[in-house]
């Protein structure tokens, strides 16, 4: 069995985030994810601190590690100086490196994030530029957003900028800078990491018999990982209640 704990310990965030947990629950008490998902950060830390590689592998393949919203509220309060949020980040990194993330529904979503955010960064130099936030795909952005995107030029100008200009908000990032950014991604491991996510996802799409494209977001597998919710991520009791209410 692979020494997963050892692999985790190579991540400085893990080393920083994991001390001895005494199961006081202070993290779960204020964790937004613990309230809306079947999730208990205390348990995650408790499991990894056992150094049981089997249990850790189970965790890496589970839905559990994908529930955290990384608000880091847990860091402020832990009386033993743990940061479950950082432990989670290290677990997620390893889960993707080892390709385990495609075993869970929430893990598979990494592919969508890679394509959307990763794509934005490498294409535009921004994580979320307005023009990449399609009002059709984001109805929750509300009526103002359709207007905003439709009249993006005017909006930016009204606020004192020029879309894709040389200065101000949403200016175009010059090609030299974009090259630098891409080279940083190459030398610091991001490109390789992206590739791992891509290939594992492609393999999963193949296994599931879903259409997969090398580019873009308009194909079955992307839509599947982006929007599927099997409804089993909240706690058992709440699912049951929801079921009974629906009956």
């Amino acid at each position, binding site marked *: 069995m692979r020494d997963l704990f050892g692999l985790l310990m190579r991540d*400085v965030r893990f080393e920083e985030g994991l001390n001895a947990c005494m199961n006081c629950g202070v993290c779960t008490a204020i964790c937004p994810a613990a*309230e809306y998902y079947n999730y208990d950060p205390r348990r995650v830390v408790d499991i990894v601190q056992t150094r049981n590689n089997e249990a850790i592998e189970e965790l890496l393949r589970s839905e559990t590690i994908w529930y955290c919203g990384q608000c880091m509220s847990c860091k402020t309060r832990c009386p033993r100086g743990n940061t479950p949020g950082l432990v989670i980040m290290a677990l997620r990194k390893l889960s993707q490196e080892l390709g385990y993330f495609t075993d869970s529904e929430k893990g598979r979503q990494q592919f969508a994030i890679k394509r959307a955010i990763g794509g934005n960064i490498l294409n535009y130099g921004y*994580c979320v530029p307005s023009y990449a936030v399609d009002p059709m795909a984001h109805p929750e*952005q*509300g009526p103002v957003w359709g*207007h905003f995107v439709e009249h993006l030029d005017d909006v930016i100008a009204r*606020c004192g900028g020029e879309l894709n200009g040389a200065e101000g908000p949403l200016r175009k990032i010059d090609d030299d800078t974009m090259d630098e950014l891409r080279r*940083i991604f190459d030398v*610091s*491991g991001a490109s390789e990491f992206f590739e791992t996510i891509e290939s594992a996802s492609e393999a999963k799409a193949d296994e599931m018999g879903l259409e997969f494209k090398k580019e873009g977001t308009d194909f079955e597998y992307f839509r599947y990982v982006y929007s599927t919710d099997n409804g089993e991520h909240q706690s058992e009791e709440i699912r049951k209640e929801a079921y009974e209410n629906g009956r």
Partner: protein
Amino acid sequence: MKTEGKKRIWSEYQKNVPDDHFFYVRSCIRQSFFPGSEQVFLKILRDDLGKDVFEDPRHTTCTGIGYHGDVVPFETIQTVVARHFALATEAGYKNIAISCVTSFGIYTEILETWKHFPETLVKARENLFKATGRVFDLPETISHASDIIYKFRDEIAAKAKYALTDITTGEPLRIVEHIGCHYAKMFPKHGIGGAEFPHVLVGMIEKWGGSVVDYPERRHCCGFGFRQYLVQANRGYSLSSSKKKFESMEPYQPDMIVSNCPGCAMFLDRWQYAINEIDGITYGKDDEGIPSLTYEEMAALMLGYDPWEIGLQYHNVQALPLLRKIGVEADPEKRFISKDGSRLPEPAGLINNF
């Protein structure tokens, strides 16, 4: 409630915010959703306060959303941040001013990591040099843009045309402040007022005549949660967290929400629309909705900037009743106009559109 207790905490968490000469880094979310906020921040600093703020057009995203979306490795984001430090070094700036709370959190986290794990700094320098040939010095100060406004709150108050008071009653407005989680929860000492009773927004609000509401879920996350919002299937989580906050603040009948985090300000606005659609609930007194502003928008309002020039109309919860309360005269007809001054069709279904 005893305010002395809060004052004591606030006095314990004061950070060194420099007076002048800032190297400004923009936020992906703020420039995409609140472009007026960043622009007016620069205007206030440069024009109203006469400060030197340099903004290098070559700076990029910090990749923070990718990092917290777990697709950008830690080493990569360190290198991207190192590049920004290199740009600052090259331009001769030692004070970094950060627009985004996620970025601010990342900058502080990286600097702390470099302090505790020096080998990571070495690696970041090596990666940056290999990729770009750039070198850098560590900055002397890291400030969030709200820290800077906080620092100059007295100056702004002195120049203010309006106050955060209801002009008809003279009562201070009841304001909910929301601090982005990554502002001080990770490193309380880097935030003004610490993690539990942050003073950065309270200081502005109280200085400008408003009163702050301390409601039970004040410290709760807005629910962005990075991957929890970025992926459609997970958005219910994000929505639910904000709803929890709205329900908790509702009994206090706040007049507005002000946030120092671009994401939070957006979600606290957008989710009011979504909740209205799903549950038919409109929060706020008399179903007015609670306008969710950025602190730059709030400062600009005080200084008398045209609300439509700073982009207040690009919120789902319109600020019209709020503007009337504080006495800002703004023509609703002039909200949505094009570059050439022609009227654009008004989006349907806005909250508070009266």
